[in-house]
């Protein structure tokens, strides 16, 4: 199966080299770095190392970066697309576990989860994650433990959905949409490291806005998704 790693990068000059080298040495999958018009020299670092990179002319945020990656995956006929953070938090050695799950037909979407057989630590962040978990359970009846994990593998059908439906984001509400479309989501235990350099997309101030958006979307918008046709 053709596998593509989508690595979104915004101002990740210090992390991107390590991330891509991790990917190249530990897997033999194709990858694409999506440079979301970084203000630092992410682009130069990628060019110097001859990384496979798609460079957006305007900064449009994480959602747009993932979407363009999905479009690329769709156009180039990939069977599996995996969202993989460019900030060094994800480890490439776990990717094959996600791919294996989809390849064996166990699920359509595999999430690299920190909490399959480990307990969630208690923090404000995890409290938010818990609320989203409860919302997902309410709407779909299924359990997703690590909702905020950015390591997600999608099969061909899900890639097509992403490429065609512009409202899909790389956020938990999209999982609800996909589940409502009849896809199965499975979590695979992975480890994640703390980010070493730079800032996350999610600043503390934006977290509240994020929670509101995701919760509203899950409860009122994605919950009404029809299995076939329409949005």
């Amino acid at each position, binding site marked *: 199966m053709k596998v593509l790693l989508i690595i979104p990068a915004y101002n990740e000059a210090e992390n991107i080299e390590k991330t891509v080298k991790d990917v190249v040495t530990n897997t033999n999958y194709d990858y694409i770095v999506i440079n979301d018009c970084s203000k630092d020299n992410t682009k130069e670092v990628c060019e110097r190392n001859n990384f496979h*990179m*798609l*460079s*957006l*002319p*305007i900064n*449009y945020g994480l959602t*747009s970066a993932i*979407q*363009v990656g999905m*479009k*690329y995956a769709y*156009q180039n006929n990939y069977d599996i697309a995996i969202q993989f953070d460019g900030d060094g938090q994800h480890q490439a050695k776990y990717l094959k576990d996600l791919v294996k799950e989809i390849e064996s037909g166990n699920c359509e979407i595999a999430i690299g989860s920190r909490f399959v057989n480990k307990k969630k630590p208690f923090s404000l962040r995890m409290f938010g994650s818990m609320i989203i978990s409860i919302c997902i359970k309410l709407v779909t009846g299924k359990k997703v433990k690590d909702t905020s994990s950015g390591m997600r593998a999608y099969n061909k059908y899900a890639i097509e959905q992403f490429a065609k439906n*512009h409202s899909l984001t790389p956020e938990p509400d999209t999982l609800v949409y996909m589940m409502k479309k009849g896809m199965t989501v499975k979590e695979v235990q992975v480890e994640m490291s703390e980010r070493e350099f730079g800032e996350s997309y999610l600043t503390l101030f934006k977290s509240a806005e994020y929670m509101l958006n995701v919760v509203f979307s899950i409860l009122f918008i994605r919950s009404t998704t029809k299995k076939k046709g329409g949005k």
Partner: protein
Amino acid sequence: MSITLRVLLIIASFFSFLLCLKRIKQEKLKITNSVVWMLGSLSLVLMAVFSNVVEWIAVKLGFIAPVNFVFLVMIAFLLMQTFIDNIRISALNEKIKDLNHYIALKELEDEDK
């Protein structure tokens, strides 16, 4: 409605109408976008001229003062306008995003060749 309010409404509509015309002439406003504003100012004039009709409707609907009814109409009009603008901005946003993606994908395609 008091005479002062009626005069004020007419003057304000007159000037907003003129402003619309001026901006169209300067090509800063598209005619399709300006029509709704001109209609809005015309309806203010109508409300000022036929204030007895406004008063009759306001009383029938149970407003304490007819002027409240005038304000409500204006607020509803503005809310509608912002909502429509919001939809337009969302659509524009999607279009720019698509262009953004298209350019990036095209550049990569040319590079890979």
